[in-house]
């Protein structure tokens, strides 16, 4: 296991969630689930983060914000879409201002469905993301990704 997998720092962004998934994401940090056991920290700063945890469907206004955060994260990085809205737009899919799931704006690596997604599944999604993070690191070192 590389060091990348032992210390994944996340940034959490609420695209246009109903806050249900946000509460569950934050619940992962509480004593009951304590993700710091796995070295996971919520940094709140894209430039420090490895994993972009995003909740809610993306709307027309914050599309650029999501892109911007993704852009500012250093390689290697993965995106975890938490909740059904982030995965596909969910019940808001047809709203006039919603452009759909996160994948319409940035590439998503792990989808964590649920309404709201349970902390266990969020943690599970992040752990899966760690594997992808590792693959991306190898790809990056081989010069495939993140050389921009």
């Amino acid at each position: 296991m590389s060091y990348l997998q032992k210390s994944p720092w996340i940034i959490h962004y609420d695209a246009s969630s109903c806050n249900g998934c946000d509460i569950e994401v934050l619940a992962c940090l509480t004593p009951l689930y304590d993700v710091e056991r796995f070295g996971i920290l919520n940094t709140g700063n894209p430039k420090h983060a490895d994993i972009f945890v995003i909740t809610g469907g993306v709307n027309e206004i914050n599309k650029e914000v999501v892109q911007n955060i993704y852009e500012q994260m250093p390689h290697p990085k993965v995106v975890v879409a938490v909740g059904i809205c982030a995965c596909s737009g969910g019940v808001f899919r047809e709203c006039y201002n919603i452009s759909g799931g996160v994948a319409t704006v940035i590439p998503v690596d792990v989808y964590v469905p649920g309404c709201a997604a349970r902390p266990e599944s969020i943690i599970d999604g992040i752990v899966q993301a760690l594997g992808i993070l590792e693959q991306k690191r190898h790809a990056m070192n081989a010069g495939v990704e993140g050389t921009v």
Partner: protein
Amino acid sequence: MLSNDTYMELLIFLILFPLLMAGLLTLIQGENFRRAAVISGAVLVGIASLITLADSITTQAVYYSVPVDMIGILIFIGDILISGYIISVSLKARQYLVFGITILQLILLCAVEYLALADHAHIPELFSDQLSGIMAAIIGVIGGLICVYALGYMREYHAEHPDRPDKRPRFFGIMFLFLSAMFGVVFSNNLLWLFFFWEITTLCSFLLIRYPETDEAVKNAFRALLFNLVGGACIPVAFLVIFLGQGSQYIGLHELVTAGPGIALIPAGLIAVAGLAKSAQFPFSSWLVGAMVAPTPVSALLHSSTMVKAGVYIIARFAPVFEGQIVGILIALIGGITFLAASAIAISQSNAKKVLAYSTIANLGLIVACCGVGTAEALWAAILLIVFHAIAKSLLFLSVGTVEHQIHSRDIEDMTGLVTKMPRITMMILIGIAGMFLAPFGMLISKWASLHAFVESVPPYGILLVIIIAYGSGITAFFWAKWMGKLIAVGEPQTKDESHIPRSEKNILYILSALTIGVCFGFPIISWYLIEPWLLTMYQSVTDLISLSNIEIMFMMLFLVLIMPFSLARFTHSARRVPRYLCGIPEGGSTAFMGSCGINREIALSNYYLDRIFGEERLSRISVGMGIFLIVLLLNILIIGGGL
């Protein structure tokens, strides 16, 4: 090594040659002539002062009597002329306070002269030792460089302010007169002579400060004159004490200092009060801040090599007398409080020249504190402070002056990202600032040495000074570092544009930067060959303040700091460039973002000035109050001491 006579001729040359230049520059108007004269004059003065310095390494102190009988009378006439001039200007400007003090001074002086004529012991008028050599080199080299810099600067100055009368011939004349008077101050052994040159520096600074002829300039010039006259009035009183009490042979500086505190303390204390006024200590400090209205070369001259340095020079001369005396402790406390308060006020200033002014006052305070303590170690620190401060401060003033002409502002906030617009000038400002407060550069060595010196001397007052320095050094770091930060904080890179800066200005700045770094490497040499021998003659014993191993470590640091920029190239290309994090959508350039409701906002960052805590008005009031209290206490002690 020169023979004594040649050496003395050199001293007289240093005093008279700038005087001659002053006359020529005032009389002859042509710009080309002025250029040639100022450059050649400055080079000659610089070389002569360096020869003096080199020679003072090897020779003992040299004393010299001027073989002209009438010269004492001539000096007296000179004094009267100066007073007469001040009286006429002050009456014209209705400055009755200045007028009154000048009259008082004149009466005192006449009394002194009456006594002097009646009973005149023969003492050598001129002398030179290592301290004079160091001071002469500072005046000659830094002063000369500033004069050359002023050539380009003043041309731009008048192009920028067409409304102000162009009196450049007179301006350069006064600059050289100033240098001449400063040489006079540091080479005079006869205190009557010293007083004469002292008054010339006061007058010159008055004329230079009022040069712009705006209302503010005239007002500030009179304030400078007033404060310096108030201080200066103490010197004739000291003479009276000497003539009436101790005997006329003690009118010689050397004779007075070596006579010990029993005889010298009261005159020395009185003269030190004049020194406090001249070196802008609280409560007199406001004249130096007001002097900022003058063109930048004038500020540089007043702050670095002349004027204020005359004040600390005279206190340093008498430092051995103050050792362990309550008078010395009071002087040291005035210096300490000035150091602390002026540094604190500098935090609240965004005008670059005012920051520099307050930092000058603060550093002079530290020098005065060292001199007041008066031990060999403290004096060692004081002299190094004088050297380092003169060089770094002139560099800072001149580079700020250059920047001011390019960006048309003195405000530090307007210097944001200057490093992309004027990388070289910014580099030099950074060197100057580093020289003012960072290890391993100059000023810090002295601060370190003064901590070493204070901790052991005159307990428990020494510890009081240590505490003051402890607070002061934190404050100093704050205001310098935030200025450095402003210079290198780049929002949008500006196009590089240094081509309008006159070559002469640039070259002077290069020389001064090289000197700033040079003295950091060279300070052990200055210490071994100049300061320690001088202290040895004054104190008979000198302990090593900074051990060899520490000097080695300092050099290691210095090398480290100097080679670091070479690694800069490696870092500039290694990272992917992304815009700064703005918690929103960057718009257009990367210094704007789209805020709520879709409104575009430009980010504007400004430094902290902590006005509530370090406001100028509030702190000035407190510290001027404390200054007045201490000065009056000092005068009381001197008067009572005299009465006893």
